[in-house]
């Protein structure tokens, strides 16, 4: 019995792909705009996981991938702050968070 269950780079990349695709499905499928923002956070986390995994497996003597992950975290924080502020500003005038009703730029 010699199971090779060691976790390699592809396993981490598959986990990242699963998180990314779940987030993508959420962005397409959810009605509530806050749920769409949450799904975007999921996708950014998947990207971060890929950065750190590639760093660990392909560049063992530097932390360049972790620097990229840090910048993604900063961008995600800024994105979610502005996004939620926009949600609250829209809610104040339209009293809804349903993406199907965000159509007043359409004619």
């Amino acid at each position, binding site marked *: 019995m010699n199971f090779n269950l060691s976790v390699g780079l592809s396993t981490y990349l598959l986990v990242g792909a699963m998180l990314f695709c779940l987030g993508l499905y959420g962005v*397409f499928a959810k009605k509530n705009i806050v749920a769409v923002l949450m799904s975007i956070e999921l996708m950014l986390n998947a990207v*971060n996981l890929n950065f750190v995994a590639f760093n660990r497996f392909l560049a063992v003597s530097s932390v360049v991938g972790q620097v990229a992950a840090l910048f993604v975290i900063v961008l995600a924080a*800024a994105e979610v702050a502005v996004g939620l502020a926009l949600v609250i500003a829209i809610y104040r005038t339209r009293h809804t968070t349903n993406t199907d009703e965000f159509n007043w730029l359409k004619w």
Partner: protein
Amino acid sequence: MSTVVFFIFAILAVASAWGVVTSKNIVHSAFFLALTFVGVAALYVLLNADFIAAVQILVYTGAVSIMVVFAVMLTLRGDVRESSEENRKWGWGLFTAGLLFVVIALVILTNTDWRILAGPWTVQNTAASLSRLLLTSYMIPFEASAILLTIALIGAVILAKGVKEDK
């Protein structure tokens, strides 16, 4: 040992991500999101990225989840049990996301360069190495992200506070 830990936290992360996108109750989605962040942070620890794991716990689990919960509380209308429904075109979303996953999985599983195990990790102190890189090679992006954070902070305050029109 680390294999078992990996699978526990990978399954935790993916299962809670599934909960985020399938839960009909948006408050449950927000808590599942925090759980996903914790799972991914544990994976960072397994990848020798201890500083990133700490930042993930602080920024994502601590700040982003709380901000999402606040936004949910401020904008909730009607019954909370059906606050996060799927729209009419969710089948197309499922098709696109599933297709993308199949393509990515095929690429990952057929690429033999990526079928490698972890070599010895030679960075002694990740926080020190990160700060050295951030203040030398990546100084311009570092300063730019500082400016970005300031602008995002001011913009978020102005957007959320609203502008008085009678002045």
